[in-house]
């Protein structure tokens, strides 16, 4: 049976939290009402897991998770809307700074929905995960594909803070296994389209919660017989020069970096600078802050598939 992103993430939560002797899942409206559009379905049925509907107090809820982790109790804070996580930044920053080196004894996962579906208004459409990753010094896992989700939940078995982000736009979309060859790196999943060894090799790197634009670009390029690697970043954090991922990226003739976040500072910029120093041929697409972001709008990505593909074709 095909599952939506919502259903698949919910399944992963069930699997992970069924395995603990004691655990807590908490958040607003998670075991009543819409259960966060279904993300919280059946959480109160998990054995040995306390599923709590909480007060509307994000700061306290972030701290609650740290307290549980200090006490060896795994937990998940399931929250609709990334923008509300701003209220917990003191905990994500100051508390995590004191505790992150060895004092946290169980996983504490914060799963945020990034409301990128449009028409929600300037505040509800926050998508500034780079700043969160930087302030908290914790990677953010992009739940942008089935493989990303699998890997993120695997990584979140380690004690400590784990921030996850899911696209609202994706929630009702089907979350299926890829039919492509998949390479698992620590920081990313690499999807290999059928290689045509005669044609240049192109890497399409995605930093973001929704991989649809990067996937479309990859498919277009593949249709043009390019040898394409779609690289879905899993962990939004610094990518080291010595990493397997950096090596894999540099094996391509052309690199296209697509960043769909709304941050003003980007980890993708840092990677691009490193790649440029390495002599790689790169196109970078990032969203630029505009007055449009201050009013209700469709929240459409400002760059389109065709122009990205055309630029690549010109640049090789």
């Amino acid at each position, binding site marked *: 049976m095909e599952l939506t992103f919502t259903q698949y993430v919910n399944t992963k939560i069930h699997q992970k939290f069924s395995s603990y002797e*004691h655990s807590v899942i908490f958040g607003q409206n998670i075991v009543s009402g819409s259960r966060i559009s279904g993300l919280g379905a059946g959480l109160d049925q998990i054995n040995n897991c306390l599923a709590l509907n909480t*007060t509307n107090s994000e*700061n306290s809820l972030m*701290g*609650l998770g*740290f*307290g549980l982790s200090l006490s060896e*109790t795994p937990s998940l804070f399931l929250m609709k809307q990334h923008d509300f996580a701003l209220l917990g930044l003191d*905990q994500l920053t100051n508390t995590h700074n004191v505790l992150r080196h060895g*004092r946290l004894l169980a996983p504490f996962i914060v799963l945020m929905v990034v409301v990128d579906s449009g028409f929600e208004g300037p505040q509800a459409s926050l998508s500034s995960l780079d700043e969160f990753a930087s302030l908290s010094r914790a990677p953010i896992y992009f739940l942008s594909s089935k493989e990303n989700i699998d890997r993120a939940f695997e990584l979140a078995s380690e004690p400590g803070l784990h921030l996850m982000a899911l696209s609202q736009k994706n929630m009702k979309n089907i979350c299926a296994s890829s039919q492509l060859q998949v390479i698992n790196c620590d920081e990313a999943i690499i999807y290999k389209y059928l290689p045509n060894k005669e044609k240049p090799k192109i890497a399409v790197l995605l930093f973001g919660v929704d991989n649809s634009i990067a996937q479309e670009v990859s498919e277009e390029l593949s249709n043009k017989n390019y040898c394409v690697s779609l690289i879905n970043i899993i962990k939004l954090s610094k990518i080291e020069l010595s990493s397997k991922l950096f090596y894999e990226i540099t094996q391509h003739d052309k690199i296209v970096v697509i960043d769909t976040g709304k941050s003003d500072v980007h980890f993708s910029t840092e990677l691009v600078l490193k790649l440029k120093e390495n002599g790689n041929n790169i196109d970078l697409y990032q969203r630029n802050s505009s007055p449009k972001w201050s009013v209700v709008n469709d929240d459409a990505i400002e760059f389109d598939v065709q122009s990205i593909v055309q630029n690549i074709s010109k640049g090789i």
Partner: protein
Amino acid sequence: MITPVESKLAEKIKIMRKIQLNINKKMLEGQFQIPIHLAIGHEAVAACLAEVFSPRDKLLLTHRNIHFQLAFGATEQQLTDEYMLKPSGLALGKLGSMNLMNPNIGNIYTSNILGNNFSVALGIALSLKLRKQDGVVWVITGDGAIEEGAFYEAVLLSSSLKLPIIFLVENNGWSLGTSISERRTQIDISKFADSMNVGFKSLKDNDTNNYLSTMLKIREHVAASTQPQVLEVEVHSLGGFYVAEDQDSKRYINYHAGAIKIEPGENGIFETNCTDPVFTSLENSNPGAH
């Protein structure tokens, strides 16, 4: 008639004062690079808490934690070394003063951010409850930190989830160099707590006998009922000073951090009244001696 426990506490309070004054001397000599917040005048509340504290309890502290560290057994050498960031310090010289924690005595978190430790206490208390461990969480705070919205959130959530937490508010009436009347309206914490179905008690005058019995009762009640409580303790941070404002007026500034410049008498007493726990302890054990 003074009880053996009171006598022991009087002695302990004197030692805590003496150690703080020794550390103060080192501060005046410039031996530390880190900021240190002394707690001269706060000794009684910490000494009494250490008496009623169960090994199953957890303790969450603030930037001003020296009195609790001393009351819970830290030695002068361990603290001095920690403040000098030496590996022989209480936290191996890694945490300094404002975040100093000692998991060996149940102090698993200390925060120097005002109001930051409340919510961490919630998680620790929830874990105790979940695992049916018969302990309570003592989260220490002050009259400045309860102005943060985090206090409201934490008291509400602790009451809603029925968590075994005691919010211990050390009310010294000051936030940095600003007194309560200079910055806000009075908060009636008893009414605030009552509005959220949370119990409330208050203590003052460094009466260790009363402190002990009240703390013990609160601890037992919170452990048995898993209902939070707020305990407000009036304290006087000694070591304040006067600054000249106009030609003929001067303004009292409360001690906040760093070295205290006034020299106390040899017995360590700063005030000859109940605002000073050392005076109170000595007076109780030897009435009229001062």
